[in-house]
């Protein structure tokens, strides 16, 4: 072997090693999302994961919540095409919460008062200002209205969301972060399919619940009634009482400190990538509920204040059905309650800068 060719080989070898190392450093993640689209907090958070080079996105699993699952799946598939990430598998999840239902929520409202937001059970089409995501109004569970952002050409995989989650945590034991941006139906089902899911996963990270906030909940005066958790309380109960290695929660208490405003939209509008164009066309001002949860996984220093709390949910089908329950870390609670890291304070500048950077950068090759 010539000395020169050895150097070439060495160089090639070290490139290989660094690629392998890079791969090894990436966080394997499953994105479980109620993906209302286009360009809602649900979609924008998915884009953060897809655009960042810190993640190996194993797959996206859809669940009814902000929208019905069937429509969300199509929106998600289309999003992957726009972001050039058709390598990411999408598995369809639960169409209905375990027990809660549109009918039950209407009976509840008759007894205890109107709710301001009910996700796929709401009809906002007659409001004076309606964004693209809400124009279609209410529709039945299986209906997929025409997609303004275009119809997808790719399809979901045949595995169910819960089965996909079970398979992935077994394939990569101790490595998989499960991120939940919506109701926790799929995660609860995965846990009941296979109780090892909680201990095999690396961490559960979720957007949901509310503690001290006096806004951000689905009725004005009670922040403990937060949408994702209220939509499927029994699924939250199953998830929160499972033995995860670690649970990190982005509650509405921190979401309400964020704002995706005009300046961010203007900065993104300057880029001419398909992602930036998609956001410029359809994104509306609002709180960065799910984006914050996603961004904090990339740069933990975005979170400037957090607490350790025991967190659970009320599942009695009465006035407080679906309300967050929480206790301080020193509380004497039964052994089935688990502690979670709960985020409360945010460095918004860091959040907005990171968001703009990811949304304006060229599409990631894969």
């Amino acid at each position, binding site marked *: 072997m010539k000395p020169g060719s050895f150097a070439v080989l060495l160089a090639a070898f070290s490139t290989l090693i660094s690629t392998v190392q890079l791969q090894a450093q990436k966080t394997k993640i499953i994105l479980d999302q109620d993906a209302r689209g286009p360009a809602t907090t649900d979609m924008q958070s998915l884009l953060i994961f897809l655009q960042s080079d810190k993640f190996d996105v194993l797959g996206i699993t859809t669940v009814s919540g902000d929208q019905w699952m069937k429509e969300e799946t199509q929106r998600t598939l289309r999003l992957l095409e726009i972001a050039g990430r058709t390598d990411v598998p999408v598995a369809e999840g*639960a169409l209905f919460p375990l027990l809660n239902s549109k009918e039950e929520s209407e009976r509840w409202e008759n007894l205890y008062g109107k709710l301001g937001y009910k996700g796929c059970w709401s009809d906002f089409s007659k409001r004076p200002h309606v964004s693209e995501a809400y124009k279609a109004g209410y529709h039945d569970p299986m209906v997929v209205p025409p997609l303004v952002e275009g119809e997808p050409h790719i399809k979901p995989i045949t595995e169910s969301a819960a089965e996909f989650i079970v398979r992935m945590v077994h394939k990569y034991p101790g490595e998989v972060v499960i991120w939940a941006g919506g109701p926790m139906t799929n995660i609860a089902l995965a846990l009941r399919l296979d109780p090892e899911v909680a201990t095999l996963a690396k961490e559960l990270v979720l957007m949901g619940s509310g503690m001290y906030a006096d806004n951000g909940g689905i009725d004005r005066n009670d922040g403990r009634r937060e949408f994702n958790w209220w939509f499927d309380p029994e699924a939250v109960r199953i998830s929160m009482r499972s033995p995860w290695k670690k649970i990190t929660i982005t509650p509405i208490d921190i979401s309400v400190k964020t704002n995706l405003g005009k300046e961010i939209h203007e900065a993104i509008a300057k880029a001419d990538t398909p992602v930036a164009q998609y956001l410029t066309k359809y994104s509306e001002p609002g709180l960065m509920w799910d984006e914050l949860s996603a961004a904090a996984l990339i740069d933990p220093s975005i979170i400037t204040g957090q607490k350790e709390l025991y967190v659970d949910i009320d599942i009695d089908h009465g006035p407080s059905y679906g309300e967050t329950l929480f206790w301080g870390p020193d509380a004497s609670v039964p052994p089935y309650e688990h502690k979670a890291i709960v985020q409360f304070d945010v460095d918004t500048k860091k959040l907005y800068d990171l968001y703009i950077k990811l949304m304006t950068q060229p599409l990631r090759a894969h």
Partner: protein
Amino acid sequence: MSSPLAGPLTRRKFVTSSTAAVFASSLAGAMPLSQMSARNGAGGQSRVIIDTDPGVDDAFALLLAMRSPELKIEAITPVAGNVPLELTLPNALRMVEIAGRTDIPVAAGAKGPLVRRLVTATYAHGENGLGGAVFPEPTTKPVSAPAAQIIREIIRKYPGEVTLITIGPLTNIAAALASDSDLAGKVRGLVMMGGSLSGGNITPAAEFNIYVDPEAARMVFQSGIPITMVGLDVTRKTALTEDHVRQLSGGKSPVSQAAAKIASKAIEHTRAQGFLVGPNMHDSLALAAFLDPSILTFENYYVDVEVNGELTAGQTLGYSPNQGDLKRTPEMQAKAESSMVIRGSAPTVAGTKNSPVLRDKYVPNTRVALQLNSSRFFDLLIGRLSS
């Protein structure tokens, strides 16, 4: 706000209507409530999945199923119930080995109910779940996939063909149905041992299988799958006797001998508690209801499950437009059936505009067994086990 009685599809209406569409277009899909039974003769064998928590009477039901040529048993899926999964799984494997049917896949199911903590019935089934009858450790292994996944795969493989026979808590079935919204419409029917319209056993309100996991039971009753409910109303009349044990002991096959062994232990266990007859063969009756529905008489009901009661969680409620002996004219009967509403508890707060009392419209979802010819049932059960 729309009234719950009008407007968009409810979950149950949604599945019922999509089931009807499948049924009309391809002759696949669920069977009408009245036609649910094993297909004898021309249609060949019926594909079934048996979801079970063995359990003394479960063991009998499994042995009966494996001795029934009408059935093509696609899988047996043990669940936690009468005893924990650590016992129901090996007990199911033992039954498969005794019957020489290790070709049937056995898939481990849920270790506990969806949201509640497991309550077992060792008082009735003995610490090992077989009344204390001891059998060797099984050498057969369960398949690696979880029960809910196997259930889903089999139903998808044979759309419109598979009947679920459930003789334990409904956790596995609920998990499978919830994880795949298209699944319920592909199930032929579900025959359950569970529930009661005439009082419970573990509480005055609730029958054990429903009591253990009421949330799962509600999901199944609201799934749109046509259900045959074989509950305490009839299974209370299935007491095993010493005479049955003698007939089983006379049988030569390993199945008959094993059944005799479990039966005599179970009878011993029951006598020790002062009962003059019994135990009841609850689960075998659900199998029998599928094999030969003519041993039972049925009536249609809208059944739902109480999931919230302080004393009554797990109660099955059967709504019917019928008024016992007060028969209506055919026209008024039809009107009563089409206009009946399903009522919930009276409101506790005043000033609501729409009534929170009305929950749904009456559409029967369950054929409930109300009367039984006990001797014909035991002829079938003991006859098949001892032959």
